[in-house]
């Protein structure tokens, strides 16, 4: 395929991905996840106070916060805190990842057609879509950075400076930088086992990445390391949530979230890359897959994060399989197969990637305007020192929009007693015993109880089971005030 045509098609894929993302993102003024509001709050703080949040006096009623600052700082600079821009910029970054992926695939295969197919499959992995659309997701920086780093590492003579800069970006963005380091160590092992020579420059770059990631992560997470030791990888998550987030990998989940096309073609791609071509970039991507797979098997990595990385890397390696397949069809005498096979692959990508992605995003529960209105009502009608009870998935909304203290939220690292708090919150929404509920409400100084539709569904209740007019006032449909 000609380069000009290829680039036009690549731009088309970019526009298609961006359009798909923006179509869903701009349907609502709100973000789709509670976590997005954690990021929003950090970004707004950088803009307003020109500093990072290390102590959050609203989350858990006051606790230390540690999070690498690059994503928040970049978004603050690019968006000036405009929510509209904060909704669009991450989607542009995520859509633009197609260019990165295309060049990685092209470098792997030297083939435009298979690279374009892989790029399309990459952009529409159901989990990738579900986890990143309208979520102000840190993955918008993380995913392109990881693949760019692998790309730069495969051609360090040209990209040494780029590699250094992006290594800093990765280390300053997310603790997943450790996965990158593990992947590099896997790469060394893989090269040793396959008798592939690693150049001096590459060895140096690997050493640099290891020491850099260790230093930066140690600086940021020192307090957590001292507190939890090696158990830091479980992030202080309460046991019942931990069992769910770090659950074992199953084949069904892999097929469902990654999509059958990238999964099968990617696995074949690993075989071709590692054992046949022994291409350095394919060894690098394979080591990322193997290290992620190992961490998932050992339950040392959250399943969503692991499957996401696994799916994206498999999609990239699927280009090797596609190229082999297309080359093979070229040799066949039946000329029409040269068109039929790519067309079939395209149809399969539509059926097994694009369509499921559409279904996933359609079923993602966007935050309703009524929730945001409730939060704004709380902000305007309650005391500044009020403590608001909400379910764990609404904790960041309480701090970011209502600007009030919450009892619990989903950021557990260094949070005070998240296990106890989660049990108490569950009890507060499910108990019928008034004395117990009042004891717990007083324990956390709670004066506002938020009973959203999501909470009602989660706890299978219609109202507060211990509600009485002596101690509780119904201030709004979903908001109660504790007055005893």
């Amino acid at each position, binding site marked *: 395929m000609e380069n000009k045509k290829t680039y036009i098609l690549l731009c088309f894929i970019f526009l298609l991905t961006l359009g798909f993302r923006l179509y869903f993102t701009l349907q609502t003024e709100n973000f789709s996840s509670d976590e997005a509001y954690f990021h929003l709050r950090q970004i707004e703080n950088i803009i307003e106070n020109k500093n990072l949040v290390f102590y959050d006096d609203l989350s858990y009623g006051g606790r230390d916060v540690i999070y690498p600052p690059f994503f928040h700082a970049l978004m603050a600079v690019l968006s000036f805190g405009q929510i509209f821009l904060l909704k669009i910029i991450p989607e542009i970054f995520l859509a633009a990842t197609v260019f990165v992926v295309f060049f990685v695939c092209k470098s792997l295969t030297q083939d435009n057609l298979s690279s374009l197919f892989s790029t399309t499959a990459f952009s529409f992995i159901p989990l990738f879509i579900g986890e990143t659309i309208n979520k102000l997701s840190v993955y918008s920086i993380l995913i392109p950075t990881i693949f760019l780093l692998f790309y730069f590492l495969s051609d360090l003579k040209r990209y040494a400076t780029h590699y250094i800069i992006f290594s800093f970006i990765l280390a300053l963005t997310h603790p997943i930088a450790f996965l990158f380091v593990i992947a590099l160590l896997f790469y060394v092992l893989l090269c040793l086992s396959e008798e592939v020579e690693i150049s001096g*420059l590459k060895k*140096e770059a690997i050493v*640099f990445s290891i*020491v850099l990631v260790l230093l930066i992560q140690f600086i940021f997470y*020192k307090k957590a*390391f001292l507190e939890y030791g090696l158990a830091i990888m479980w992030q202080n998550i309460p046991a019942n949530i931990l069992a769910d987030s770090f659950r074992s990998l199953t084949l069904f989940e892999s097929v469902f979230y990654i999509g059958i096309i990238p999964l099968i073609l990617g696995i074949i791609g690993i075989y071709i890359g590692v054992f046949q071509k022994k291409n350095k970039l394919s060894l690098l991507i394979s080591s990322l897959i193997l290290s992620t797979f190992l961490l998932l098997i050992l339950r040392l990595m959250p399943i969503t994060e692991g499957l996401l990385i696994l799916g994206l890397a498999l999609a990239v390696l699927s280009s090797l399989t596609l190229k082999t397949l297309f080359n093979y069809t070229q040799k066949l005498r039946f000329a029409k197969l040269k068109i039929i096979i790519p067309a079939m692959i395209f149809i399969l990508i539509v059926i097994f990637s694009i369509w499921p992605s559409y279904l996933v995003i359609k079923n993602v529960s966007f935050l309703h305007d009524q929730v945001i209105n409730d939060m704004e009502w709380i902000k305007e009608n309650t005391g500044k020192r009020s403590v608001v009870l909400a379910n764990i998935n609404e904790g960041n909304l309480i701090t970011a929009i209502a600007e009030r203290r919450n009892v619990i939220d989903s950021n557990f690292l260094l949070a*005070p007693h998240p296990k106890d708090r989660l049990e108490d919150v569950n009890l507060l929404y499910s108990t019928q015993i008034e004395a117990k509920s009042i004891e717990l409400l007083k324990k956390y100084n709670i004066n506002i109880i938020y009973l959203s539709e999501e909470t009602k569904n989660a706890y299978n209740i219609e109202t507060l089971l211990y509600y009485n007019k002596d101690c509780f006032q119904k201030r709004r449909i979903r908001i109660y005030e504790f007055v005893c």
Partner: protein
Amino acid sequence: MNLSVKKEFFLIFVLCVVAIALPLVLRYLFVGDYLVGTESYHQLRLAESKIFFYDQFSYGGRYVITELGLPLILSLNSALLSKILPPIIGLLIFTFFYVLIKDLPRNNRIISSVLLIVSPPFIYLSTVLNKYSIAVLIVLLSLLLFKKGKYFASVLLLSVLSLFSVFSAVLFFFLFLIYSRRKKIEKKHILQLLGLDILLLLTQYGYKLYYLGIPKILKFVGLDINVNFLFQNFISDLGGPYGFALFTSILSFIGINYFWRENKRETLFFILVGLVMFILTIFFSQTLFYLNFMVIILASYALVGLTKHVWSSGLIRKMTILVIICGLLFSFVSYEKRLVDSLPNEATEDAVYFLTKIKNNDVVFSHPNKGFWISKAYKKNVMDEEFFYAPNVNERYEDANKLLYTTKLEEASSIINKYNIRYFYMDNNMKDSLYNGREEGLLFLLRYNPNFNLIYKNKEVEIWEIENV
């Protein structure tokens, strides 16, 4: 810039003075004029009270087992020596180390010296009053004499080691034995050392051994209150009280390769000794003080090797070395800060003073890590960190743990009566580490049982008295 050896030494010495003085001065300015840690108070009390045989406050009364070298020296002028001894010893350790490694290539020598200065074990030895500082100093001096061929003087010094650390004396007797055989040194020196060691050990412990028998094997590992897992002890950045800096330990592994290239004959012996010390550290964390010198030398080989190595990219070379230096400095600065902020502080001192004022010798219960402070207040403790030869140490440890975590009054009262406990010392450090800030275990009992009266409280410490259990 080519400096003469004297100038080079002087410059690094000044750096050493700054590194040692910095935490002491900052602590004096921002925390107060208090010694760091718990052992320092134990040594000081033994010296001040001239307790050399029977200690009525430790474990409710026991024979003094700790080595008496340091208390004897301190007893000359405890107030002054407790302050100036650690930094002076630190400077001497640095000087002896520098002289010992004089034969190393210049760059290795300079980098080793600087790495020593910024290493947490060295900073600990130079700022905290503890018996190992003098033991390390003696070992270095003895090595220096050994290197100069003055074997008898070296042996004499090594034998004195048992006055400060029996563990070190035993360790270095075996190391001397192995090294002497390797260097084909006359057997008489080994016999001299063995004889002197036995003589001094028998003088110190013979009668105790006769009266008390063989010490009990500990059925627990006495970890520091903030140390949650054994491996933490090795790395100061992970919370070890005097562990290695993270980057120094990584560099030391890389350094093995470079050391091997330059010293093929010595490497195996060096690594084997290092490995033995590493294993010993798991059981005796004080081995870290000696292992630190080996780790530092290996790390210096790594740093020199990395700088000399022909890098394919000058930029990556500069960035890697910069990041490593930042990592070393980060460990150094954060360790110095930890020392400055460490307990005891004004609140602890005030609480200990309050205990001192109580006119009786009743038993005060707390975590074993607070035991030395309690005995410094002339009150009996149930347990402290001197586990060796302690009376019923395993039973006491089990009971102490039960009492710390029980919420049942019956269970608590049986232990309270068993040890005649009258007071409880509870500080924020215990509340955070043992109870995670919750009102659990003993804390719950103290708060909600009317039999316990809060008789003292400041921002850090609470002291409770038992009325009737």
